[in-house]
């Protein structure tokens, strides 16, 4: 199912820089994600991974550089238009809608992604979920394994479940690129393993590309095709998981001493 139509990478980030009050959080970062490719973005805390995510997703505007998705320049687009192009994401600090049920989270996401919720439909009583929407939502809930919580209000769920709700909400939009920011934090070993399986399956079956920020290097090794390592705002290594883990610069960044 992978889309082979276009040529060149799906996401192309070129020379992106972002500073906060003089501190360079990301400086001159260049990376690309191919169609259907799964890329791990790792690095110690403060490396600039989430800032880079926010620059791609539209939550932050970089001072320099280019960000393109399938050749479309993203920097002039507001966040919601980027989402409608097929960028799905989850957040490092949970961002859920506390008063809504899990099921409604996914329905809202579907309607927002394909712009099917119009106000005249509300006023003419045509806004009940369609059979197609129900199928789509139910299948993703089942895939992520939270179908039993479908009717639960999210404010009563724990951290781990909220992470899965966020992931399901991103997946139900059938993103061409999923950007997951530490999806395994708050999950136990078993749940993390399950999550890794889901992500791998989606990548294989749907050809979904993925950019994964993760501290659980075991999971990264399990899921990704390629790993990019950042430290202090710059990319210090790019290659297969085993290659970068053997790289002395990476070991130094993590351990703080020359390997």
């Amino acid at each position, binding site marked *: 199912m992978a889309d082979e139509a276009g040529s060149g990478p799906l996401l192309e980030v070129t020379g992106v820089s972002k500073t906060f009050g003089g501190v360079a959080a990301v400086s001159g970062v260049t990376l690309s994600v191919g169609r259907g490719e799964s890329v791990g973005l790792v690095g110690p805390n403060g490396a600039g991974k989430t800032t880079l995510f926010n620059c791609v*997703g*539209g*939550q932050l505007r970089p001072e320099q550089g280019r960000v393109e998705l399938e050749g479309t320049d993203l920097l002039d687009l*507001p*966040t*919601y238009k980027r*989402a409608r192009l097929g960028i*799905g*994401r989850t*957040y490092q*600090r*949970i*961002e*859920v*809608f*506390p*008063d*809504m*049920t*899990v*099921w*409604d989270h996914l*329905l*809202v*996401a579907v*309607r*927002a*992604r394909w*712009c*099917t*919720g*119009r*106000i005249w439909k*509300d*006023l003419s*009583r045509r*806004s009940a*979920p369609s059979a197609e929407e*129900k199928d789509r*939502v*139910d299948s993703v*809930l089942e895939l992520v394994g939270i*179908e*039993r*919580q*479908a*009717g*639960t*209000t999210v*404010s*009563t*769920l*724990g*951290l*781990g*479940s909220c992470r899965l709700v966020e992931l399901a*909400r*991103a997946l139900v*939009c059938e993103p061409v690129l999923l950007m997951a920011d530490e999806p395994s934090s*708050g999950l136990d070993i078993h749940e993390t393993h399950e999550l890794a399986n889901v992500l791998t399956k989606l990548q294989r079956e749907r050809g979904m590309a993925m950019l994964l920020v993760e501290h659980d290097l075991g999971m990264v090794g399990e899921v990704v095709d390629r790993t990019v390592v950042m430290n202090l705002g710059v990319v210090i290594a790019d290659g297969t998981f085993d290659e970068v883990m053997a790289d002395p610069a990476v070991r130094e960044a993590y351990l703080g001493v020359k390997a």
Partner: protein
Amino acid sequence: MEHFLGFAIPGVPYGCTYAIVAVGLVLTYQATGVFNFAYGAQAYISGYAFTKLVQTAHLPVGVAFVLSVVVLAPLIGLAFDRLLFSKIPNSNTTAKLVTGISLFVGIPSLLAVLFGSNNTYSPPSIIFNPDTVYFRVVGTPVNGIYLTTILTTVVILVALVVLMRFSSLGLQMRGAVESRRLIELDGVNAGRVVAIAWMISGFMAGLAGVLLAPIYGQLQFDDYAALMVAAFAAAAWAVLRSMPIAALVGVAMGVLATTLQGYLPVSSVWSSAVLTSLPFIVLVAALLIVPGLRTLDSTKDPLSSVDPPTPPTAAAIRAPQIEKVTRVGWYILLAAFVISMLTWLPTTWENVFNAGLVYSTVFLSITLITGMGGQLSLAQATLAGVGAFTAAQLANHFGLNLLLGGLVGAVAAALVATVLAFASVRLRGLGLALLTIAAALFFDNTVFPQLTATNGTSLQVKPQWVGLGISNPNGHAFFVLAMVVLVACIVVVRLIHRGTTGRFLGAMRGSETAASGMGINLRWQHIVIFALSGAVAGVGGTMLSIQQQQVNPQLFVYLLSLVYVVVVVPTGANTVEGAVQAGFGYVIISQLLTYVPSRFGGNSLEVVFFAFGALTYARHPEGILEYQKRKSTLRFQNLLFKDSAVDPGSPGGSTRGAVAPRGRPPGGGGADTPATAGAGDHG
């Protein structure tokens, strides 16, 4: 130059009182995280007490000052903190605003209820003699009032800057704003720090109140309300952060006002429009220009995750059997109401209930903007006024039927609301509240007076404007009309609430980051809900004008927008029922209060009643009435089905596992699965 100074110097004492209040607002915000809407009311209490102690109890000025400013004012600040604001989490901007607004509206009314509403003239000055000219600056006399105000302002400013910048107490105060709970983990007694901050800010409010009174020569709350708006503007330019900037802008505004007054020709439109509008022009400019104001409410308490989840509504926890009975009960009540209105009810009560229907329509606009949009608009009475004035002017000049004109009025109100929405597209919470109150003042001062008959007298609504045999607005025909309009508005609001728009707005209330990150156009939704709310308010405004048989600015004055908020909040701003209960509650209680002897306050008592009801918002944001409904529903269900209900007082008020929430999606598995992990650990 001499000419200029002659105009400018008398502005300095006004500017100083703006400065003291603005600095007090900044201090309260910096030290407690609360934008204290009630500050003007606090100042009024001290000014009132001081004047009464001197003039009625004949105490020496010094003793009266100590009692009213040094003792009473900090105690009021302390009481506000201990009884109200300390119970509101810092991140809940709406609760803090509603509490402040309730006090702002309630306190002057309470004073009127307790001590009568006679105006007090020539309030005394605290240090120098008001009648003595101490010296002249370039020919301009400087009297005791000027001197007292300027001297006190300088002393207070210096003392505060030193406190906040250079003392450890100042540092702790700033920490407490971020998160009281977090600095407590560092071993700081946050409660004590915040309480001290409230006492200091209370003292400043009292001082401003006592200083202000002699300048105006008369003690009336309107001056204190106007002072607040000027202080809002000064504080906004300081981004609620810098006391010196707040003080400078405050003084500059005072000087600018008297200078303009001097140069602009007396009795020209410019003189009346610009001068009265100056504070809100400055305020709007700040809101549109100063970028820092957009992110005022964006900080989150790092420990907010320990807060319990919002409890479900009474309707959501009702067991299906009870739900059926309740629904049938409501239909019977509705039928009985309609039949009674058309047959036996005396005219007085028919009139009251007709007004209830009209106010319910106006209040539905608050359900849209506050309940669904999650934003506090303080211009709903103004939007209603836009609808009413448009319809009345069209009828008056073009002979258009008032009901058709009402639809045009609804469109006009929606357009005004849309302009507000565009202006406030980046503002949320506090910024939005300030922008809407500025807009309300603009319409009050500049637009509405131009639209009345002549010289500000009311425009009478003539029966032939309305047609349909509605010659007597208290009659049956008006009842049918009001009922039809209300039901139509309710249907629209419910359809929006249950549809995609309602869900999108729910998502935005939960997390704007995630909502835009999945494709929701936040600006569009913001504009849509404003426009809808404006349209409903506009319809309600036209109905109100028919019911009152006149249109005048007093029907839609900005203070009423604040009163509307405090009326709707206790009954529940989130639900359609809440708006209807508020509409009826408002008119029924005011009718009942007419039976109370007028020495107990009359109208003021009504405002006090609702304002103190609204003070419960912090504990019960769903509305105290809704809370009681949920409690009694649960108690009743406990009695009826012993095994399936739980105690509403349990932490979090959660009822999951007991009675499954309604609204479960089709095909969406068991709703009553308990959460898999601790409910409190998500951020």
